[in-house]
């Protein structure tokens, strides 16, 4: 039975339905494995008792033949989703002790489908980071190590803990959120699949907001099929989120079938710029070959404003965040550091409650919105955003999907990039454009670099074309045949 945690989400689901094992057994196996993986620091909260109770309820439904799509499947949830009765921290000291009296729409959808909550995963504070190093609860650590090295590597971020949980087989699947690459980048660095859906596909209600116009929840899994399953359960219209879209949710699993004949794949030439490493370039070319070999037509396309995306993102996201994070003031929830008057209390609470990266972004955002600077920064960035979205629209007139690398390189050492925020920001260079344009994007594990670390390829689709995107991803996954897994150095 030691292999229960090795099952993919889909395999686990089918095994549960066949009663090969119970939800309690599967959940217990995950909890044991989580307990043995403390060096990875993937979880902020493990909800063991609750998980077993949920598993028992799932077993009861399974015996009654009433199982939902994900009945009994144990999942890890990024600690940015509010979970009723379970501590929710956003990786920040400022939400100290916060236990939401409500459940986020996306997680509620999953529990309705029968899934089991294992616990809440580590993340960059308020999802601001690309390495999970800004967490108040310490960095999550990648299960991967470079060949012959014992250096601790980042799992990517901000959904680092969820990536760890999936890659180290602590959970059958996990939830992440992606504002500038926070699902796809950690997926790429940990050899897992990460999907950011179209903006509006999944409800944002109950997810601690970072940048409202960019945030989107998505699945993190070990296979493309698993991502399709999770997305199907997560997605849907939510009347409580003004930006959630009222469109039917297709059967993404069914949509996985089918070849690529006639599919037009674009390779945006601007992604080659800025000294791409030969290793990444080779991987990208290999990915194009795999798709071509299955009948796709691959051509170069141009997204001319790509190089401005990161700069626009680092104005828009902090600006929205500076406003979204104003509610953390020590009055209604979380940390409170006293002061003589309300202003002093706010300053003390926020000064102590927020970490350095969050403060940095609040300051940038506040500055960019402040009198005299709004037009030069925020308004201009939003116009550039329009241009970036137009680039994609134009490209999608000639191709169906785009193929790019997910990241500029493999996982790096903890502490290697923390001294220079700009260097850290460059991690998102291939992923932010997708958020700015509100498009769906998926990272698929595509190979290992010379040191044995995973690399991913990204597919970008048209709005709400997740079904097509997943089908192409499934073919890419098959062609790549990625089967590497990290050595279990953490279980001594």
């Amino acid at each position, binding site marked *: 039975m030691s292999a229960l945690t090795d099952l993919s989400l889909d395999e686990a689901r089918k095994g549960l339905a066949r009663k090969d094992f119970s939800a309690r057994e599967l959940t217990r196996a995950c909890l044991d494995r989580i307990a043995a993986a403390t060096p990875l620091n993937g979880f902020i909260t493990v909800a063991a008792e609750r998980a077993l109770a949920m598993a028992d309820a799932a077993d009861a439904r399974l015996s009654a033949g009433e199982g939902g799509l994900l009945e009994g499947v144990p999942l890890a949830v990024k600690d940015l989703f509010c979970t009723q009765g379970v501590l929710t921290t956003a990786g920040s000291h400022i939400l100290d002790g916060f236990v939401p009296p409500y459940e986020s729409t996306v997680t509620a959808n999953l529990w309705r489908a029968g899934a089991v909550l294992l616990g809440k995963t580590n993340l960059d504070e308020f999802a601001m980071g690309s390495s999970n190093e800004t967490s108040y609860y310490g960095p999550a650590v990648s299960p991967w190590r470079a060949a012959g090295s014992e250096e601790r590597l980042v799992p990517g971020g901000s959904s680092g803990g969820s990536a760890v949980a999936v890659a180290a087989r602590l959970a059958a699947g996990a939830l992440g959120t992606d504002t500038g690459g926070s699902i796809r980048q950690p997926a790429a660095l940990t050899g897992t699949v990460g999907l950011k859906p179209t903006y509006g596909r999944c409800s944002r209600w109950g997810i601690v907001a970072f940048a409202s116009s960019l945030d989107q929840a998505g699945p993190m899994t070990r296979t493309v099929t698993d991502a399709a399953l999770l997305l199907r359960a997560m997605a849907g219209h939510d009347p409580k989120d003004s930006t959630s879209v009222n469109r039917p949710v297709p059967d993404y699993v069914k949509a996985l079938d089918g070849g690529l004949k006639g599919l037009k794949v674009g390779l945006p030439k601007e992604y080659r710029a800025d000294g791409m490493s030969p290793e990444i370039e080779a991987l990208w070319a290999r990915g194009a070959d795999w798709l071509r070999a299955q009948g796709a037509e691959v051509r170069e396309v141009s997204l001319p404003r790509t190089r401005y995306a990161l700069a626009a993102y680092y104005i828009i996201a902090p600006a929205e965040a500076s406003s979204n994070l104003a509610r953390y003031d020590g*009055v209604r929830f979380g940390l409170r550091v006293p002061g003589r008057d309300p202003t002093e209390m706010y300053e003390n609470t*926020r000064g102590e409650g927020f970490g350095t990266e969050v403060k940095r972004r609040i300051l940038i955002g506040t500055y960019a919105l402040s009198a005299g600077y709004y037009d030069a920064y925020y308004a201009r960035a939003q116009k550039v955003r329009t241009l970036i979205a137009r680039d994609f629209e134009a490209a999608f007139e000639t191709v169906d999907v785009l193929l790019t690398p997910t990241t500029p390189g493999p996982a790096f050492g903890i502490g290697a990039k923390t001294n220079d925020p700009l260097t850290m920001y460059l991690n998102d260079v291939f992923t932010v454009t997708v958020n700015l344009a509100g498009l769906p994007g998926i990272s698929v594990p595509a190979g290992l670099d010379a040191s044995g670390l995973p690399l991913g390829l990204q597919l970008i689709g048209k709005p709400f074309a997740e079904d097509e995107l997943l089908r192409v991803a499934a073919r890419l996954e098959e062609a790549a045949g990625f089967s590497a897994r990290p050595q279990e150095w953490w279980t001594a």
Partner: protein
Amino acid sequence: MSVDEGTVRRVAKLARLRLIEAEVAPLARELSGILAWVEQLGELDVSDVPPMTGVGASLKRRADQVTEGGLAEEVLRNAPHAEDGFFTVPKVVE
């Protein structure tokens, strides 16, 4: 755009962030770096481009019905300090 330490302090005040003295100089340096890098957006001609405000089609609306409330206890439960059914703050002097 170079951000000096005074600007960092002013913006921190606006954002209600107490900074310790040692944070100010590095932040000024980092913010200057980031904003200098953002200057590249000036290379694009955006004079006839509308800003992208929101992604999506039309604004969702809700009926005028009372569906929430009566939750004073739950609303107050997470408060670091509450009294007599109220949230509290240090006394405000108008």
